[in-house]
């Protein structure tokens, strides 16, 4: 999987691409933590538009991002989730902790 990022006006967007599982999670988490520390953004958007698969490792990753952002008074949310990753988000009940915006369903 790949994590790409862009930053503008206090908003960091993290683009997750490919498959997110336990094998990929630790490296992704390290990269995301470094990026958040570098920018100290006000908002962090986790864009799942090009994420083709995730398991519960993705839930752990989102919770960690949410905690990182809360530590500096910022907020995080998930955007463009669809198909299998959206179903995992729904099943986990994580929307009680963080806002989830689904992609337009095709």
């Amino acid at each position, binding site marked *: 999987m790949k994590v790409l990022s862009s930053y503008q006006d206090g908003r960091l967007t993290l683009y997750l691409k490919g498959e997110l*599982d336990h*094998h990929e999670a630790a490296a992704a988490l390290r990269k995301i933590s470094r990026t958040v520390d570098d920018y100290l953004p006000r908002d962090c958007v986790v864009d799942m538009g090009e994420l083709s*698969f995730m398991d519960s490792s993705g839930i752990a990753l989102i919770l960690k991002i949410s905690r990182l952002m809360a530590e500096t008074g910022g907020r995080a949310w998930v955007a463009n989730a669809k198909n*299998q990753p959206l*179903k995992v988000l729904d099943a*986990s009940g994580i929307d009680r902790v963080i806002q989830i915006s689904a992609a337009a369903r095709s």
Partner: protein
Amino acid sequence: MKQLNYIKMEFPAKSVNEGFARAAAAAFAAQLDPTMEQLGDIRTAVSEAVTNAIVHAYPDTVGQVQMRLRILEGEQLEIMVRDKGRGIPDVKKAMEPMFSTGGEERSGMGFTIMSSFMDGLRVRSAVGRGTTVTMRKRIQTKAGA
């Protein structure tokens, strides 16, 4: 229940094999002509079960993980993931949402997701002897859906 087809595989408990295990399971299940959503459910459940074996069963060694898939009469897919690792002292506790003994990259949602994505989930474990997770899912064919 009559068994119509099966595969068995064994691999070392290395995280790099998680992706292989779910791809293999999806390829085997394809003969039931599942929908994309059902295939996603199968891949997710296998990923969770295999990851549990890799993370929890063998904390200090690289042991073996066995996976067996069977197609049973009545369009049932059965997935079994077995390890011979340290076992789970309290299965009921381990299956509670958000309970985890893993690191920060674990969420404690594995069993919750396996249970919600499959039609049946059974976990048998003995401390020091290993854990077997068995899951079932009915795959209604697209034509009959």
